[in-house]
């Protein structure tokens, strides 16, 4: 794990929270959409908050797929849950909303869960993949030796 990878995981959390919050804010401005008039969903995209929310959710999808390319699903999953914690903290300290004791317990549980998984390896090394990597390295060494000769 290097700094860039931690940055990608932070991106997963921040983009998801920002996207959800903006989408929710925008949809409240747009108002309820009836199942009989589904085409009004298309006009909802014209709302700036909804458009910005979709842009941030695309950012979430990019960072999420990026993280899954080098880390296990069970490693990345808890990072997405940190978003709930971030949202609750924003609600408490920026919007000055009340957080019940049960929700504080929820925050502690999620944070401990993320702490637990972050202490372990990010990716499971499969024997076949390891054998493949070793064969590739051996081949590269051989080519290097031949070029050296």
């Amino acid at each position, binding site marked *: 794990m290097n700094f860039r990878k931690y940055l990608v995981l932070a991106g997963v959390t921040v983009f998801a929270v920002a996207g959800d919050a903006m989408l929710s804010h925008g949809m409240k401005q747009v108002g309820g959409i009836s199942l009989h008039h589904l085409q009004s969903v298309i006009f909802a995209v014209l709302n700036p908050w909804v458009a910005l929310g979709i842009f941030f959710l695309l950012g979430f999808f990019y960072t999420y797929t990026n993280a899954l390319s080098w880390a296990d699903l069970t490693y990345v999953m808890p990072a997405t*849950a940190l978003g709930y914690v971030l949202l609750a903290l924003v609600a408490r300290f920026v919007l000055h909303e009340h957080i019940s004791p049960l929700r504080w317990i929820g925050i502690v549980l999620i944070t401990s869960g993320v702490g637990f998984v972050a202490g372990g390896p990010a990716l499971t090394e499969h024997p076949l993949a390891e054998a493949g990597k070793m064969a590739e390295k051996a081949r590269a060494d051989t080519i290097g030796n031949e070029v050296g000769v």
Partner: protein
Amino acid sequence: MKHVYTWGAILAIVVASVVGDVLLSRAMKQVGDVGALRRRAGLWTVIGRTLSNPNFLLAVTSMAAAFFSLLFALSWGDVSLVAPAAASLTFIGNAIAAKIFLHERVDRRRWIAASLVAAGVALLAG
């Protein structure tokens, strides 16, 4: 009866989300480390390789199915039940599916983490 519909839709969200996450994870492992690949072969190679991966396309389809199941669930049940139930069950489902289908080493540390996060999400979103 409405209760049955709501839980049926929650089950559909969980199954579609887990299938989507597992397929996406498998697709991205097949594509390889995106950062390293982009430096080596360029952004268009990364985009081309990702979009042409069948698992990626199936994953996006599954995620879309999860999204529409969520809309149905919300039309039958309260958001205070649907959101935490679907999110926390998805965490547990992902841990089980990752072990079975992706052969990830889900050791005691990861089981504890998944359970703590699932319980935390249920409390926070409830």
